[in-house]
């Protein structure tokens, strides 16, 4: 795996919007969750039609200021609806 490729897991409606279960981003400039969100929002306009979405890093909800690097497990979580 290339060291500057982020592998982003997609779930629920995010898979439909992004068109893949794992979306790859090759980037040296994305350093935190906020930058990742800006990238995704510009690339996939439809993400803005959601009732928000969250980013998880290593199985925890992440804040915009949380740092990420390609070795992290990153996921796009649209609004959950379990239960």
């Amino acid at each position, binding site marked *: 795996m290339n060291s500057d490729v982020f592998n982003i*897991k997609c*779930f*629920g*409606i995010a898979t*439909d919007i992004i068109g893949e279960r794992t979306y790859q981003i090759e980037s040296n400039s994305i350093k935190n969750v906020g930058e990742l969100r800006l990238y995704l929002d510009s690339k996939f306009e439809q993400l803005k*039609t*959601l*009732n928000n979405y969250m980013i*998880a890093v290593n*199985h*925890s*909800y992440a804040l915009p200021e949380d740092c990420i690097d390609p070795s992290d497990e990153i*996921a796009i*979580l*649209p*609004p*959950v*609806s*379990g*239960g």
Partner: protein
Amino acid sequence: MTTNIKISSEPLSIDTAYQSVIDASNGGNCLFVGTVRDINKDKKVTHLDFETYGPMAISELKKIAVECQTKFDITKISIFHREGKVSITEIAVIIAVSSKHRKACFLACEYAIDQLKMNVPIWKKEHLEGGSFWVGARP
């Protein structure tokens, strides 16, 4: 303190959930059982599909279980959730809680299902007669 967390593609058993929380020192046991409804917002549902982010869902469910044991005077809690296809009237989720006195098990059980619905990475796709959609995704 005992917690049992399970995500399963097989039917969930109320008896298994109940057996996992009973305790000779507890008198109160509360179970919430969420089942699949045939009608949602006036549309006829044929079945549901639950997608889960497995490891994170388990981790979030454990957090809820531990939080319940911190906030309420309970000793045992089990949370079971289905994944994959689930038919009408089948069980999607079971939360079982036991406590010495009854008030705590009600509070913890309701808190747990509220938190589950808000925070656990599980997504429900509703299959209707005329198509399907991800529940709650869009306004």
